[in-house]
């Protein structure tokens, strides 16, 4: 097609990461196309919880999530109502004295980086979330954590990108080609630079990428306004998220602005079917009910699954793809794609345009040396 335009950047994937990259590229004045075969924001983005959370599995993860959280705070005044951004804070639950010591260490780590964090003793925790079972030791409150509705957030970025001239191309990518992308229907998208932001499907275009799909389940209840006030996560979540091989569940509860309660979470490697697995769902719900027994009585209306794009060191791949000139990666975000999408877009655009970034980009470069992975709090 001789008359088709040549884009400065073509982004594969209109999930929240691809949409955020498109918004950043278009804002930088680049002629930007986003290619998506399904509904924008309808893949792993739609399956995610939408928890804007600082995580400290490693210093690099801490830096990226905090930086991105601050970027979300800058976006907050502009987010449409449908995005349901709510700074409800995260309560990291400690079930016993051992976990409480972990929570205190976590608090100190947050504070040393200038991130607000406070300790709640058992009484203060019970007052903050009366539905928690008695007997928990306490919690750390990360008050700046927030929640949002991911598909609407992805659409917000995509709409912004389009308002600045970006184009959504509906089509299925077949392969990366010289100077562009071949679509399944025979069309060719010509572009100077290509950004692969296809999440767990990225290995379909670049088989060597260190990304494995990691299945998760979620369940949402009917509306119970005022039932839950904070995102409530057990400290064991860190260990669950950190585990590399085994199936695991952790209590992770979220209050939606609608009054609904979102119940997570599970992590599985090796699962390929998107079907909800009753056994895994049950394990996850039992874990949640262990912290909040009254959940058992709430009416649930929907369960679903999604596939996180997991890397071995729990850090995303942001930067030039090794051995593929003009191809860039923005993928491998595991369970933190919603949180880190704005930071990913900022870091990637800084590299592509040769401008300085707000935080060091080295830990997220695709050709980084693998870490040993012993660093979490």
């Amino acid at each position, binding site marked *: 097609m001789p008359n088709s335009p040549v884009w400065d950047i073509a982004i594969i994937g209109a999930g929240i990461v691809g949409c955020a990259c498109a918004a950043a590229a278009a804002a930088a004045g680049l002629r930007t196309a986003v290619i998506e075969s399904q*509904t924008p924001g*309808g893949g792993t983005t739609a399956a995610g919880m939408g928890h804007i959370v600082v995580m400290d599995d490693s210093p690099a993860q801490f830096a990226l999530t905090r930086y991105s959280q601050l970027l979300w705070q800058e976006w907050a005044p502009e987010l449409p109502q449908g995005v349901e951004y709510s700074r409800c804070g995260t309560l990291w639950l400690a079930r016993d004295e051992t976990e409480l010591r972990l929570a205190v260490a976590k608090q100190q780590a947050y504070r040393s980086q200038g991130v607000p964090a406070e300790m709640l003793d058992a009484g203060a925790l019970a007052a903050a979330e009366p539905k928690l079972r008695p007997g928990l030791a306490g919690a750390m409150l990360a008050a700046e954590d927030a929640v949002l509705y991911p598909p609407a957030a992805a659409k917000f970025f995509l709409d912004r990108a389009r308002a600045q001239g970006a184009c959504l191309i509906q089509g299925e990518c077949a392969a990366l080609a010289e100077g562009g992308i071949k679509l399944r229907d025979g069309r060719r998208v010509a572009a100077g630079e290509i950004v692969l932001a296809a999440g767990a499907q990225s290995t379909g275009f670049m088989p060597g990428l260190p990304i494995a799909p990691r299945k998760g389940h979620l369940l949402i209840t009917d509306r119970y306004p005022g039932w839950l006030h904070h995102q409530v996560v057990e400290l*064991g979540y860190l260990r669950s998220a950190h585990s590399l091989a085994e199936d695991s569940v952790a209590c992770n509860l979220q209050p939606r602005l609608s009054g609904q309660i979102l119940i997570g979470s599970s992590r599985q490697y090796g699962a390929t079917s998107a079907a909800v697995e*009753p056994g895994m769902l049950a394990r996850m*719900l039992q874990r949640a009910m*262990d912290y909040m027994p009254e959940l*058992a009585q709430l*009416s*649930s209306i929907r369960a679903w699954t999604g596939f996180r794009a997991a890397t071995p060191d729990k850090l995303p791949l942001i930067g030039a793809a090794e051995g593929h000139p003009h191809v860039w990666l923005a993928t491998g975000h595991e369970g933190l794609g919603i949180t880190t999408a704005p930071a990913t877009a900022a870091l990637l655009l800084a590299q592509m345009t040769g401008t300085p970034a707000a935080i060091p980009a080295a830990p997220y470069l695709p050709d980084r040396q693998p870490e040993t992975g012993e660093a979490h709090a």
Partner: protein
Amino acid sequence: MPVKAAAQIVVVGGGPAGLAAAASAAECGKRVLLLDENPLPGGQIWRAKNGTITAEAEGWRQRAQAAGVEWRGGRQAVAAATGQLWLEHAGGVEVAAWEELILATGARELLLPFPGWTLPNCCGAGGLQALVKAGLEIRDKRVLVAGSGPLLMAVAAFLRQQGARVLLIAEQAPAGQVAAAALHLPPAKLRQAWQLRRATRGVPFLAGCWVEAAEGRQQLERVRLRRGVRRWSLECDYLACGFGLTPNSELGQLLGCALTAEAGIAVNRWQQTSVEHIWCAGEAAGIAGVEAAWRSGEIAGYAAAGRQERTAPLLARRDREQQSSQRLLRRLAPRAELRALAQDTTWLCRCEDVTVGEARPYANWREAKLQTRCGMGACQGRICGAAARFLWGWQINAARPPILPARVGTLAQAAPAPSISTEVTV
């Protein structure tokens, strides 16, 4: 741990198809469990009134009981996997294990949006009938029965028998089509129709007439009607408005059964679905009326019990019934004007407060759901999904557990509780 139940054949749904399937399978010597959400058998069409089983359902119940069918009412199937069903009841949870599963989940009314359709006292036609059977006082109330299909006459007759003042029966299909449909009814159906018409003697029946809007401040006060170029208002207390039926195929979808173009569960001539060991009978496989339902139930029951030879005399009767129903339904197809009734401000999804105008710009059901939340509420799109399919031709897909709202504690019992200490791997 949930209570366990097991049978060689589990039948979901205790209406005509389910009763017939359960009785037939049990008569072949199989252990059969028959489940239904209602406390008594009968389904929607033979729904018990004030706790009393109807005569039609009682006949089948006796046959099923004599054959040894175990009846369990008051149970909703909320989730399923190969060989298992999760059932919720008022007191807790049960898991039913099955070798063969017969889906007889019936149909629900097709409701189409028009301005004011969500006002209090606007109901489906079958919906109002069910409310009255459950105790709603309808005596001396002014009722307009509208929409489409054979159900309208039956509902009007029932409401009148209960003392309602039925003002009008408005059938949207043109008079010519209604007359042709009546002309082609088999003698037994014609007699039935004539009896219903007698029971509604004095109530005007207008073909080619439909509701354009329902109006009222706090609740329904009047209905705006249209017939050809004529438009007028009618004051009434209740509107019973349904546009026929749409199959309840969610449980089958969840188990991976293929669907027909009409959103029913696809079956072969022995009522077998695309998934091995799963069968479907009655309206869930396609709308064809009560006689086709119980005949297809018998076929499914025999076939699932491995006695296919017993189905031979039944197949032709079922096919005739289905063909005659399909001819009738084609004549009563919803007219194009109904698609234009819903305004941008008309509610589409009443669970999530989404208007027609909010959902309309999206390309498909999935996108509209994600961005507006339509169909994501407690009814899980059963009403607005069917309406969106009618309005915009959207494919409505992807049943997910729970297929009906279920307590979190119910779904938590799908597997034995693992010990907490081994829960999180370090």
